[in-house]
């Protein structure tokens, strides 16, 4: 049973460029959330996708956008990269309506983005 998989694991981009990060949720999960974790801090919620729609969004600018595909996988896109976007980007998967299992949320290993 594959867990949450993310790609790429590391990447370096130049300020102003655009980046796309990818995520495949845990088998059986239908909801994908993205988090940004700056060095030494806790993860911050970016947005959540369910049924191919953005359902919730945290306090992040429109430069951050996403997509969910029919197979539940997801992409995170960041445009006009800033130095401050350098962080670990985490994908989390869950099953909508899974209240009986305590809202279990699983994270991938993350994609390390460095903006230079």
């Amino acid at each position: 049973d594959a867990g949450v998989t993310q790609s790429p694991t590391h990447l370096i981009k130049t300020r102003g460029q655009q980046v796309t990060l990818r995520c495949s949720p845990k088998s059986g999960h239908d909801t994908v959330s993205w988090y940004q974790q700056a060095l030494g801090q806790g993860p911050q919620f970016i947005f959540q996708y369910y049924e191919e729609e953005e359902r919730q969004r945290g306090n992040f600018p429109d430069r951050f956008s996403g997509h969910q595909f029919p197979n539940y996988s997801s992409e995170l896109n960041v445009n006009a990269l800033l130095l401050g976007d350098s962080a670990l980007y985490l994908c989390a998967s869950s099953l909508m309506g899974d209240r009986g299992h305590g809202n279990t949320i699983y994270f991938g290993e993350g994609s390390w983005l460095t903006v230079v």
Partner: protein
Amino acid sequence: QQQVKQSPQSLIVQKGGISIINCAYENTAFDYFPWYQQFPGKGPALLIAIRPDVSEKKEGRFTISFNKSAKQFSLHIMDSQPGDSATYFCAASGWGSARQLTFGSGTQLTVLP
């Protein structure tokens, strides 16, 4: 009102000792409180979680204590081992927010051999 405050920022414990990490929340709509363990360069791994209808949950050496009236919860690691050295994050979410986790700032635990 969405904050989760975590303390201490760092903790050093001798092997075999008890590690205690505390968190406090403000939003009474939170109804799910997980703890995550994160090793350097890795994603957070779910350690243990609790719902507010119970005051304590134990899994192996890890115990969550929950005080609903005080809006506080804590992680106790019994018989701490050097392999437990990691960063620990408490988090909280509410059903209405469809499991949008709000994380604490993390505690870096070091267990000395």
